[in-house]
């Protein structure tokens, strides 16, 4: 295929009148398209705004009010009662602490490990490197269900069921796949001459990595942190499988699911807990949004 296909034009451009007319038609066509595009955007925004606004507004209404008028009613007094209630009575604070206790170490370990592997593969080019990369990146395609069966038995033997350890260990290891892929691609773009120059100046390989390469990698690390944090924070499959017996080791997502089961009609309570559970990832996204897209693309595009 070629990038541009030449289509020589043979339009009637003789008369100035004709040209003006064509120009006018083109202008109208552009305006029409822009209006169609605008309409599409407005519909799209509404499709996304309504559900999000629905949760937030439900969280601000009393359960009695919702029972009387329904979830989507536009009227009603707004109150923070649900938040105060959820914060003080349910295990909400415990759930949040548990989620952070899983997410922070798992994000750190997965990125650290992925960076080390990616760097070694890119700069040391060890024998068998291609195979190592293939095995680690294939981890992206292993469905979690494949791992669940053996891991359940393994953690039961190690007596780690109903602790936070299974989630920390699994998310750390599973995260190596994407982190290695992204960091390897990143370090491949940094010229080897930089490393050799520092080595000749007497730095050790460790120094080069720590003082020269890592500071350069900050944007890629930020992208991975966003990606990994969101993924780990939002996960509930592993907590569901490994900690379902004890409420005090539940993460916030599992807590949310449990609350849904307990108070089938307490919509206001559910909604406020859902908002609380979503705040950390939404904040992380707003802060790092540029990095996120770059992170996703750098992992997959430059191979």
């Amino acid at each position, binding site marked *: 295929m070629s990038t541009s296909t030449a289509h020589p034009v043979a339009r009637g451009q003789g008369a100035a009148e004709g040209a003006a007319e064509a120009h006018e038609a083109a202008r109208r066509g552009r305006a029409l398209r822009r209006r169609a595009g605008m309409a599409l955007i407005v519909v799209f925004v509404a499709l*996304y705004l309504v559900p999000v606004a629905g949760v937030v507004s439900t969280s601000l209404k009393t359960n009695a009010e919702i029972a009387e008028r329904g979830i989507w009613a536009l009227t009603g007094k707004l109150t923070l009662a649900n938040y105060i209630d959820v914060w003080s009575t349910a295990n909400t604070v415990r759930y949040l602490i548990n989620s952070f206790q899983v997410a922070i170490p798992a994000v750190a370990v997965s990125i650290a490990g992925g960076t080390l592997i990616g760097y070694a593969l890119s700069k040391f080019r060890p024998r068998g490197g291609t195979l190592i990369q293939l*095995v680690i990146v294939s981890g992206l395609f292993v469905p979690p269900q494949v791992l669940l069966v053996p891991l359940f038995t393994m953690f039961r033997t190690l007596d780690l069921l109903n602790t936070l350890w299974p989630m920390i260990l699994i998310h750390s290891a599973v995260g190596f796949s994407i982190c290695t892929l992204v960091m390897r691609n990143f370090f491949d773009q940094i010229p080897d001459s930089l490393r050799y120059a520092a080595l000749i100046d007497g730095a050790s390989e460790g120094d080069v990595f720590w003082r020269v390469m890592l500071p350069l990698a900050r944007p890629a690390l930020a992208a991975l942190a966003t990606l990994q944090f969101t993924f780990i924070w939002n996960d509930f499959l592993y907590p569901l499988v490994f900690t379902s017996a004890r409420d005090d080791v539940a993460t916030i997502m599992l807590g949310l699911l449990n609350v849904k089961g307990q108070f089938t009609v307490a919509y206001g309570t559910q909604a406020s807990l859902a908002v609380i559970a979503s705040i950390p990832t939404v904040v992380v996204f707003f802060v790092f949004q540029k990095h996120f897209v770059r992170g996703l693309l750098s992992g997959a595009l430059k191979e």
Partner: protein
Amino acid sequence: MRPTTRWSLLFMGPPIALFAAIVVLPTAMALRLSFTDASLLGQTSEWIGFDNFVEAFTNEHVRKSIRITLVWTLFGALIPPALGLAVAMALQANTRFAAVMKSALFVPISISLVVVGQVWIWIYQPGDGLINQLLGMAGLDSLEEAWLANRSTALYAVFAAWAWQQTVLAMILYLAGLTSIPGELVEAARVDGAGHFQVFRRVMVPLLRPITTVVLSLIAINSLRNFDLVFAMTQGGPVRETETMPMLVWRILFRQHEQGLASAVSLILFAMTLVVIGGLTWWGRRGSYVD
């Protein structure tokens, strides 16, 4: 030993050991389990050869979940990317909105599928659900439906909630892809007399191919391992109409306690993932300009 070999070992050794313990070894164990009749409750297990795989391909529930997962992946690869690209193109032409929109749309993709599921349950629910209320207001009461409880609508209803989130993912990636297309290239095609459709077909589509491969791969993986949303919304019901393969594995494992069969079904899912990703990678390389 080359000095870099020692550094390689030092750098890669610990993370690779962890990866081997949590991912590689369990995958191998799952493969072994799939040839046994191991149960989560019992202590002993017998080697039964391919029986689990024979069972998987003949059991109507497994076959149905394979069908659901394949249909889901197919529609997932068509609808969210197409909508995402359309909106991304509209946004690119209306730059005034682009910045605000981009920030706002990070909300749907940063929230968990548990939360997405909860909102959509409220949208679908009979009585005061949003859709039924809107239908009522429009005087179309006869079309009101218990969307998630009805056997013929449940799957589409859950899919729509999922597509709602995936469309944004596709849109954000396509926006990045569109901004990377040099404007001169489009201009040049226009000057050469190409119409809008031709510019789209002959310039944008080929240039967006790498991004499309990424979008399709991500969405395919998300489709194939779709457990969260189904669990949050229907747990596979009504009458197993929304039982995707991951949901079925969960059920076989924790309701029927059959480790062997659960491993076999999950490995079939793994194989399906590899085939889909392999196909997409091949498709992406085939039409690539680079290299």
